[in-house]
Structure formats: structure tokens, C-alpha cells
């Protein structure tokens, strides 16, 4: 076994010693930084003159949002926002008005959240509608949201039991939401859409020559004539390929997270995910989403980790990863289940077809959770859709010897996409 790890080490050495690999990695980090901060370049104009830079706008909006942080998103706050928006005169471009800039802009986040709730299939909720919101309508904010959620879930092809579970989860969401500034997380979630492409680019350069490089260099004969050249080395190369792909995903994600947080701010880890995705049916927060879907809990503050645990304990059976849709390739979201109730001493495959289909084009993908004597959990996920299927697996160390560790171990599960062939990290505290 030692020689296996030595071979893995040499494979890494071969890859990382290449100048092209180092250049590509650096490029990917630069692209990641630019993806995060790119929106801050440029200015906004009023009457052909520079009004403010995008960076200044972000700083200003962040300050406004921070001023409202901690307040409950209830009828009072929404009506406060409505009152401010009422001051805006009817013009073609309301954002250019002094009234908007001075009175309404501090509540722009509230307007944006309200819009997602009050939008209907036939009519897009606009600024005029917001100005006209009545006290009665505002009081029905969470009821409207719930109705919309029910409608969405009912419209899916899930089994009735799955629908019930989905709605039960939704019912667990604490309302009213506590408002918080979430600019860093929002940006992080957005750039994850393209992170897969950058990762794929890096992987193509790094992983492609894993086998072919030996032929190109002419080292194949030496390898094939050696004792471990036809078996252990192949396993070592495969492991290197998978682990490197995971490491690249993780590194780029970490870079994206770090850039997002440093530029836009660390706030919002504890804010409910519904502030960003109003119709997500899981009682979890931004931090938990980011951590679980990208294993970034390692980079987060301890109190967030606590929340993350709590969120998972509450969610228990499901986690919906709400991003990493690469629209050109495949728009499906990857949904991973982790079932705590399947925790016998034997390896129990997860029922693959029990939960399938959620929210239109999104899918639940079956995940298999296996127990191995309480020491580790093997999670494998099959991502299927549009005629493609990828199965990945990873072993999650579990340091507790408790027989029901599956229930206790908070697991952050990462997504497997066509562009994200591998990547999972998790932890246990």
C-alpha cells in the first residue's frame, strides 16, 4: 500500500512540476478573482455623466443593507420599504431619481425579495406594484410564499410522499426571515456557475496527460516492463486524476469564496437562504448552503459551523444545492440526499428511484449512503439527466464510534456536474 501512495506522490510531482500546469492554475485563480470583482469595474451614468462607480455603489448598498441587518422581514419592514418607494415619482428610469437615491435605495434589497414572492406567472411584479402594496397584502407575505411553494411542489413529478416531505421541510423554515446583508454569498453563488468551466479548463490541462504523457515522453516501455506498471500504477494514476480534479474544484471554490468574502464582505452566513432563493424549501442559511455545497465550512467562522450543524440536523434528509448550473451544458441542479434513517450496521444502498424530480427541470439525484462500521461513510452520487450519468463516490471519515454516527455527522456534500466530475469534502467535529 505504501508504494501506492508513493506512486500517487510521483504522479502529483509529474503534474505539478510542469510549467504549463502552474501557469494554468495561476490563470484560473486570476479568472476567479476577476469573475468575483469584475462587476465592480465601470460606472453608472445619469444624463450621460458618471454618477458613481460600481464599486462605490456596492459599498453604498452594502452600508444600507447592513443598516437593516438583524431586523425581521415582516409587514412592518416591508411597509417601511413601500413607504419609501412611494416617494419615487413616475419616470422611465426610477433609479435615476433623487428620491430613489436618497429615500428608497436603502430598502432596495427588501423590494427585490418582495418581488420574487409577489411575482406571478402572468405578471411580473414591478416597482409600481410595490408602491401599491397594501397593508393586507404585506401581511400575507409568508402566506403568499407558502402558496407559491405548494404550487411549485405540486407541479413536480415527485411522489406524494416526497412532496409531503418537501413541504414539511418548507414548513420548518423560520418566519419571518431575519434580514441580513448577503452580498458576499450572493456573489459567491453566482460565480459558482462558471467555476465549473474554469475547473474543467484546468483539469483538461492537468489531468489529460496523466496516461498519454507517458507515451508522449516515451516512458511507457519502462513502466510496462516494471512490476507495478500494469496494475498499481494505473490505480495510482486514476486516484491522482480524481483527487486532483477534486482538489482543483475545491481550490477554485475556495479562491472564489475568499475573493467574494474579502471584496463583498463576510456578512450573511447566518441569514436564511430564502433571502437569496425565496422558494428554496430547506430550513438552512447562506453559510450552510455555501459550506455544504462547496465544503467551505473549513474557511468559515466557528459560530457558522455551529449553525451549519444545526441546519443539517434540522434538514436531516435532504439538501438542495441551488447552484452550479452550467446553462449551456446542463441546467439541472444537483440534489443530493443524505438519509439518516438508513443506518444499519450493514451497507445499505440508498433507494435510487424513490425520489426523482423536483421543481421542473431540477432533479433529485439518488445518493447512496453506506456505513462501514461507524468509522467511515461512503457516499456515492449518481448524477443522471439528459442522457448523461456520472457516478462519484467518496469516503467520509467519521471519528465517532457511535453506532448512529450517520445521524450525527454533518456532511457537506458537493455537486457532481458534467463539469464538476468530482469533489466532496466534509468533516466531523
Amino acid at each position, binding site marked *: 500500500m505504501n508504494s501506492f501512495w*508513493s506512486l500517487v506522490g*510521483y504522479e502529483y510531482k*509529474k503534474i505539478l512540476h510542469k510549467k504549463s500546469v502552474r501557469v494554468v492554475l495561476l490563470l484560473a485563480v486570476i479568472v476567479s478573482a476577476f469573475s468575483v470583482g469584475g462587476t465592480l469595474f465601470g460606472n453608472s451614468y445619469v444624463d450621460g455623466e458618471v454618477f458613481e462607480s460600481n464599486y462605490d455603489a456596492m459599498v453604498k448598498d452594502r452600508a444600507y443593507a447592513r443598516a437593516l441587518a438583524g431586523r425581521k422581514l415582516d409587514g412592518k419592514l416591508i411597509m417601511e420599504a413601500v413607504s419609501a418607494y412611494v416617494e419615487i415619482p413616475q419616470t422611465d428610469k426610477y433609479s435615476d431619481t433623487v428620491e430613489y437615491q436618497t429615500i428608497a435605495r436603502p430598502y432596495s434589497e427588501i423590494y427585490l425579495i418582495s418581488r420574487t414572492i409577489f411575482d406571478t406567472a402572468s405578471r411580473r411584479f414591478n416597482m409600481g406594484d410595490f408602491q401599491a402594496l397594501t397593508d393586507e397584502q404585506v401581511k400575507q407575505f409568508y402566506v403568499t410564499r407558502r402558496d407559491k411553494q405548494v404550487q411549485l411542489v405540486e407541479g413536480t413529478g415527485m411522489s406524494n410522499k416526497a412532496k409531503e416531505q418537501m413541504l414539511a421541510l418548507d414548513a420548518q423554515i423560520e418566519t419571518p426571515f431575519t434580514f441580513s446583508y448577503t452580498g458576499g454569498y450572493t456573489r459567491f453563488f453566482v460565480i459558482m456557475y462558471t467555476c465549473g468551466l474554469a475547473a474543467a479548463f484546468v483539469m483538461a490541462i492537468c489531468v489529460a496527460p496523466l496516461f498519454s504523457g507517458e507515451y508522449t*515522453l516515451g516512458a511507457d516501455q519502462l513502466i510496462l*516492463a516494471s*512490476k507495478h506498471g500494469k496494475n498499481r500504477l494505473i490505480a495510482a494514476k486514476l486516484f491522482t486524476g480524481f483527487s486532483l480534479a477534486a482538489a482543483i474544484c475545491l481550490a477554485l471554490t475556495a479562491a472564489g469564496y475568499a475573493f467574494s468574502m474579502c471584496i463583498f464582505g463576510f456578512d450573511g452566513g447566518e441569514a436564511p437562504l430564502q433571502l437569496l432563493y425565496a422558494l428554496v424549501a430547506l430550513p438552512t442559511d447562506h453559510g450552510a448552503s455555501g459550506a455544504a455545497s462547496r465544503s467551505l465550512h473549513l474557511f468559515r467562522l466557528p459560530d457558522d459551523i455551529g449553525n451549519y450543524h444545526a441546519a443539517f440536523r434540522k434538514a436531516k434528509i435532504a439538501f438542495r444545492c441551488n447552484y452550479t448550473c452550467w446553462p449551456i451544458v446542463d441546467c439541472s441542479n444537483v440534489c443530493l440526499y443524505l438519509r439518516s434513517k438508513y443506518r444499519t450496521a450493514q451497507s445499505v444502498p440508498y433507494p435510487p428511484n424513490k425520489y426523482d424530480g423536483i421543481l421542473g427541470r431540477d432533479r433529485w439525484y439518488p445518493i447512496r449512503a453506506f456505513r462501514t462500521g461507524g468509522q467511515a461513510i461512503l457516499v456515492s452520487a449518481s448524477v443522471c439527466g439528459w442522457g448523461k450519468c456520472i457516478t462519484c463516490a467518496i469516503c467520509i471519515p467519521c471519528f465517532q464510534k457511535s453506532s448512529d454516527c450517520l445521524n450525527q455527522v454533518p456532511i457537506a456534500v458537493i455537486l457532481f456536474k458534467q463539469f464538476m466530475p468530482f469533489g466532496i469534502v466534509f468533516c466531523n467535529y
Partner: protein
Amino acid sequence: MELTLDRVTKHYGSKIACDRISLTLHPGVYGLLGANGAGKTTLMRMMCGVLVPTFGSITYDGIDVSCEDYRDALGYLPQEFGYYPEFSALDFMLYIATLKGIPKLRAREKARELLELVSLEKEAKKKIKTFSGGMKQRLGVAQSMLNDPKILILDEPTAGLDPKERVRFRNLISRLGADRIVLLSTHIVSDVEHIAGTILVMKDGRLIHQGALEEIIRTIEGRVWECIVPQALVDSLCERYPAINMRQEGKDVFLRLVGDEKPCDSAIAVQAALEDLYLYYFSEVNAK
């Protein structure tokens, strides 16, 4: 200790690279001679498990060539092979040692010992991309001996080495052949002549001769001629007979030729050498 080849055949489409080669090798040094394209490298690659024979079998003490145990007993220096340019000589040796399943501590010790043997100890930590052709070749020879192989297959091991290194390697290979099977192919006939106990001659994928040097040479005994001829005759003689040696001697030319018949009246039969045999079988004149 016996390496057995039983009707080993390799086809590439309609081309037969090796044709029903049967051999039994025991400890000792075997020299494989043959022109380019004779099938030497193909045969060696099959013996190393790099190529799979189309037909026939290769076994070492009953272990098939495809088995890990066979490769465990094997050391191979390919004719042309690649190095990882960013690796140092020591890294490369340790990597090959890992591939050969040698424990780490032993590998480090053995790698240093072999690097010293091939006079690369001072360059052990230098990157291979800075090495000359000869240094790379020495490194190649060193890696082939890492696992103290029972079967050592060397495809042109002395190519690129200076005469001093060549002599050193010849002596080393000679010593190694005492308790293992060493098969080497080379175009440098004198190397084979000096160290190979048994010479194997391949032509067009077939083994046409095998035996000790004296036995092999006997096949052309009485067919090697030396003569001094006028310049005008040189071209016509060289067209009919493979010329082994040609030297200007005043207005005339000294020729050493191989042929079944006396090439000219002044020619005298001389003692044959391995190079004569090589040219006799592989010269363009005979190929025609």
C-alpha cells in the same frame, strides 16, 4: 533459471516482425545481432511484456511473461525511452524503484550505489533535462539494474557512450551475466564479440544463427578476403561483394571483402571476424 521462448510470433497486419522464434536462455550473456528492422526490438519488447505476441509463449521458470512475478525478475533498458525532464536522476531512480516494488530505504541505498556505478553520483540531484545523451544512457542502464534482475534485457545499452564508458559497461555486463540471463542487442559488433557467450543473429524476423562466437564465425570461414587492387577495380568489386574495410594504399586500394568466391586473383582468404559475418548477412549487396 531458464527463459523459454516458444514459437514467438508477432504480426503487424501482414508484416511479420518476428517469426516463430524458439529459444531457451540460461544464465549468461546473449548478444542479439541484426540489421535495422530485423525484429530485435520487437522480440525484446515481447520478452519484457511491453508487446503481446501474436502467437507463442514466453516463460521464465514457468512464469508467463504477463505475470507480475515475471516483471519482478526483469530489468529492461529500451532502445529509446523518455525521462521526466523535471525529475532529478535520484528522483527518477526512486520512481522506477517504486514501480519495481523496492522498499523505500532499500531503493535509496540501491539508487545511490548504481548512480555511483555509472559515474552519476555527482549529478544525482541534477535535473535530467540538463544531462547529455551519454549521461541519460548511463542513467538508463542504472535503472535497469535497480531490482537486481534475473533477466536483464538491454536494447543498445552502449549507444551514445564514449569508448571508456563502453569498455566499463562491457565489463559490467560481463560480470552480471555470471548469475543471470543478459540479452543485449547492439549495432556495435565488437561489444557483442567481447562479452556475449552466445550470439543470436536475426534477419527478417527470423533467428538465422545462434551459438558461440566461434561457431557463428565458422559459417563464413573461408569467405573473407583481403586484396590490394587498382582504383579502377574498386567500384566493380564493391558492387559484387560487401566491403568490410577499404583503405587507400598509395595508388592502389586495400579491400577486405566477404564473398562465396574469390573476388580477384590477388585476393587471399583471411580469418573471419564477427563484423564480417554481420556484413555478410546484412550488407545491401547481399540484400539485393
